[in-house]
């Protein structure tokens, strides 16, 4: 009875440790406060109930993992990350439980026998050690960590803590045959290995992200280069026009002097309509990233015979990361170009609109399409031979998330329209 009470109390104390872990590994809460509080309360309740009724260590462990997972559901994160953190915290518990059990002289702890472990001092120690670990974890808090690990890499990562748990369980069955010191050392080594894996996982995620970023920067470089060429060409056109201006003006002056006003008028009209409107610069906002990606993609589309209808109105000094905006606009245009090139020739038209309003940047792309659009998870799904396109929209959504932005899709009557919005960074308040 006493032992049970201590057990329950120590687990209630562990709520705080759990809270520390959660705030260290996750950023944002996604559920209303009462639900969050309930999950935390549920944690000791579930575990203690299991302990007080069934009390088979393996079952306790399984239930513990589930209880922790329930808490992680309250935080904004990918499922992958939740499971990973859950498993890592659980292996911590297993390690601490085992080390303390062994240190206190427990022999023959069987994972499947009821009531094999019951030691009040042990419970308190475990709670304290866990608490210290949770405080340490807070030191490793990283802001805004995004998941960039593939499924295979993730499976490899959680295999280690799960495997470790298995090893420890086997280990414990032979405590009586191995010296205490060796057992504790062995378990400590396992803990060390798991800590290393955790760190490696983190590095892996960062490295993958760096690769992704690098690919985007390469693209951006390409766009900038083309933009430079356009601007250069534009300069040349203006220069030659200015040069011709003198001659044009002489002609006009002559016409006026000799009273040939009609001639002068038509000459002037032809000048206005002619040269400077020849070069197609679709975007001239002054924001280099926006201008370069738009001009590059739209000229490419025009080259394929697609009619471009654009309305770009954005201040030159808005603050958006250039790689991000390149990625978003580039991907959306790629999709539109792809879709519209499978439509009848006379219907090939893309409509692009970029506008800024009160702290938000709106990007709208509209195009005709052929066939049926299937949605999956709120996002349009493309057919097999273009696996990259599904990836493209996923990237757009991911990038938008950085700005707490959002994208909406609308399709009817053969016209597909996407509108993305992001909150720009305010430079001075």
């Amino acid at each position, binding site marked *: 009875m006493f032992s049970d009470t201590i057990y329950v109390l120590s687990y209630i104390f562990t709520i705080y440790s759990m809270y520390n872990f959660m705030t260290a590994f996750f950023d944002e809460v996604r559920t*209303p406060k009462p639900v969050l509080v309930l999950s935390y309360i549920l944690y000791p309740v579930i575990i203690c109930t299991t302990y007080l009724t069934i009390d088979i260590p393996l079952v306790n462990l399984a239930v513990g993992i589930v209880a922790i997972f329930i808490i992680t559901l309250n935080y904004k994160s990918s499922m992958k990350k939740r499971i990973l953190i859950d498993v890592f915290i659980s292996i911590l518990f297993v390690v601490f439980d085992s080390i303390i059990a062994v240190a206190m002289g427990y022999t023959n702890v069987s994972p499947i026998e009821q009531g094999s472990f019951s030691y009040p001092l042990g419970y308190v120690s475990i709670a304290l050690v866990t608490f210290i670990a949770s405080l340490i974890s807070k030191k490793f808090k990283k802001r805004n960590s995004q998941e960039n690990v593939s499924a295979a890499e993730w499976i490899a990562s959680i295999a280690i803590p799960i495997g470790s748990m298995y090893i420890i369980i086997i280990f414990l069955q032979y405590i009586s045959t191995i010296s205490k010191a060796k057992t504790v050392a062995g378990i400590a080594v396992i803990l060390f290995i798991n800590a290393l894996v955790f760190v490696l996982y983190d590095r892996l995620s960062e490295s993958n992200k760096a690769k992704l970023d690098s690919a985007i920067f390469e693209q951006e470089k390409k766009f900038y280069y083309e933009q430079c060429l356009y601007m250069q060409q534009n300069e040349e056109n203006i220069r030659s026009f200015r040069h011709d201006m003198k001659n044009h003006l002489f002609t006009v002056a002559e016409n006026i002097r000799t009273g040939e006003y009609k001639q002068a008028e038509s000459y002037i009209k032809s000048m206005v309509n002619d040269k400077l409107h020849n070069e197609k610069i679709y975007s*001239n906002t*002054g924001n280099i990233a926006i201008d370069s990606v738009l001009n590059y993609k739209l000229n490419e589309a025009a080259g394929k015979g697609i009619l471009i209808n654009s309305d770009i109105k954005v*201040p030159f000094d808005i603050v958006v990361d250039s790689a991000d905006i390149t990625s978003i606009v580039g991907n959306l245009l790629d999709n539109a170009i792809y879709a519209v090139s499978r439509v009848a020739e006379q219907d090939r038209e893309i409509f692009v609109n970029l506008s800024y309003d*009160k*702290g*938000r940047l709106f990007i709208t792309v509209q195009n005709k399409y052929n066939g049926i659009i299937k949605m999956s998870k709120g996002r349009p799904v493309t057919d097999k031979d273009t696996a990259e396109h599904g990836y493209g929209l996923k990237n757009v959504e991911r990038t938008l998330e950085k700005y707490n932005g959002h994208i909406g899709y609308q399709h009817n009557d053969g016209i597909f329209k996407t509108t993305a*919005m992001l909150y720009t960074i305010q430079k001075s308040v």
Partner: protein
Amino acid sequence: MTRIAIVDDNTAICSFIEGILAKSGEKYNVGVEIEPYSSGEDFIAALNSGQVFDLVFLDIELNQLNGIDVARCIRQSLDDENQQIVFISAKEQYSLDLHKFHPLDFLVKELKEDDIERVFLRFLKISGLFNDTFTIKSGRDILKVKIRDIKYLTVVNRIVYIVLKDNKQIEYYSTLNKEYKEHLASFNFLFVHKQYIVNPQYVSIYEYDKIILNDGTIIPIGSSRRKEIRLQQLKSDGRLK
């Protein structure tokens, strides 16, 4: 009667815009009174003598006093935010600074008939909503409140406070839910927080978790409402269904 001012040192452009506006006024059955000004100084003199306009087409590259200074004057004059400004410029590029004056739109010369008509329509949509009023009972008085004068509403202990543009407040017993459902939702007011409803006309900057008004007031967006408010913005102005 909608009073419109056109401030541009190029008289040809003034008459061009005037013509389109007159046509649009007829087309949409709106009475328009148009005053052209060929310099910023003339326009400001008119403002100072008490003239008020609903819509101002303002050339940025004016000869002496530049368009930005004129815009500043407009915003500081009596009817402040209720005068809609449309900037006109010969240059395609413009700075974020212009947004400090909360313009309705920004047009680039060569001006096209379509652009002017489009802006006029936008103006109608926005201003049309705000000549409306709604009545409330405050104690023994029955008050009529103009929608266009309301900056935001807040609530403390079951008393609703309507904060007006001159920072006067009206208080009365009610709940925000009630006011939103019965009166304000139809004017596209934003129910951003369980304690705040905001008039979008007075918003200067939208962020994911807060709204900054023209006068600098910061109003938080409740965490459970952020996604909904964001979706509303995506759907605003006919962008998405």
